[in-house]
């Protein structure tokens, strides 16, 4: 069965990809087919330290506004997500992203175009 996202054949059993060229590669294995839920979970994991008060971080959270994260930390988080999901998100694209949902969709979109 081909991957519905990329058209590539699925890896037979493991569905696992070891991310290359990354110092955390040995510890981090991500599903070959990162689902939207996986991506959002990973983003939320990065954002957790910046949660403001009790409000949970959800898809509609506006990253720069609802959280205590500054623009530099956002860029650093993006750099880590890039390596986790093996995509590059240009800075002008990052500038257009406001919510967790939009960031996840961007990552999924870039993955599907690889």
């Amino acid at each position, binding site marked *: 069965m081909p991957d519905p996202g990329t058209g590539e054949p699925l890896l037979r059993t493991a569905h696992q990809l070891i991310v290359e*060229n990354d110092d955390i590669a040995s510890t981090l294995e991500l599903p070959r087919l990162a689902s939207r839920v996986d991506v959002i979970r990973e983003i939320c994991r990065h954002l957790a330290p910046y949660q403001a008060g009790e409000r949970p971080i959800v898809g509609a959270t506006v990253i720069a506004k609802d959280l205590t994260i500054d623009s530099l930390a956002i860029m650093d988080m993006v750099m880590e997500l890039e390596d986790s999901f093996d995509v590059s998100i240009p800075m002008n694209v990052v500038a257009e992203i406001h919510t967790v949902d939009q960031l996840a969709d961007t990552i999924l979109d870039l993955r599907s175009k690889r």
Partner: protein
Amino acid sequence: MGLFDRHAGLLEAYRDVRTTGADPFQIRMERVLSPTEAIINGRKMLLVGTNNYFGLTFDPSCMEAAIEAIRAEGTGTTGSRIANGSYSEHILLEEEIAEFYGKKHCMVFTTGYQANLGVISTLVGQGDHLLIDADSHASIYDACKMTQAEVVRFRHNDPSSLESRLRRLGDKPGNRLVILEGIYSMLGDSAPLREFVDVCKKYGAYVLVDEAHSLGALGETGRGLCESTGVLDDCHFIVGTFSKTLGAIGGYCVSNDPDFDVLRVTVRSYMFTASLPPSIVASVRQALRVVKARPELRKQLWDNVATLYDGLAAQGFKLGPEHGPVVGVHLPDRMLAIGFWRAMLDAGIYVNVAVPPATPNGVSLLRCSVCAAHTPEQLQHMIEVMTGIGRQLGVISGPPKLRVVAGNR
């Protein structure tokens, strides 16, 4: 909404700093006495935060050259090179810098900031790819905002992080331009340039190195990290500044590209600002001669770096990762950094304080820059002062406890 409302957060943070009585961002140097001393708040201060690496701001030969140039050609050019023409000395300076690097072309700018801003934003355009180190200087980030190219950051000083980003571009069309710095301005660390160049070669990327803090300091003849790592020929563009080691103001870019000169009619930060005044051009030409003629200044600088860096490290301060003309001292947070800075000022020593967002990874730093003209005594004194303040503020631990022999045992 008022025009300044968007800066409310910054204003508040800034107010916190200013209520303590001294503003690190508005220090008034009442009189600068030498490369290492000035009068601030009516007192003589030791300067350890001026980027004046060779101490050439008061070099008699550079000062004389500037004074002579003013007498001969006046105080300013009153216009840009393309509008008002070049003075012979602009062209001679460009020829001398090109020759210094063994490159064919050189363009001189009115500041290093403008050199980076204009060159980087113009070299790449729509459909191209610009890859920058995450800890790049503001002038490089600002260039990113001005270009139509796609900009991607890679981890600081990490060639494998650059490689994964170049690999991901695959066979996408467009040029790749990679931006690196010789010595990073906050922590004084150098790029692993040879490894970076190898990655760039593998993926056919152009390399631009900003040698702002490494000109004079690194390399057999002071040409910077490109020289000390033996990759001068592999760096397509080298940018630098006259505002640090050369003790004046201005910027430059050198290259061997045969079409380089087209930048003179495309780079807006070159075309639409006044060119350097004769006095500056003259002092910079002389300063370059001094750099070539007096390699002992480089040795003095590094001897002084070793004194300060090793002395502070021995007291337990957390410093940047390696010796460099910039010595960044890590402090736990912004307020402590500002308090430390103020205590230093009270003790007669001027350094820089660097806090987020101007610093990488949100760190707070006392940023010290070493000068060849510092005496070992000045630096020893500074280490003692910093040790005392560091202990008072609990940043480093106190001296080994004296064994208590008296008392009610």
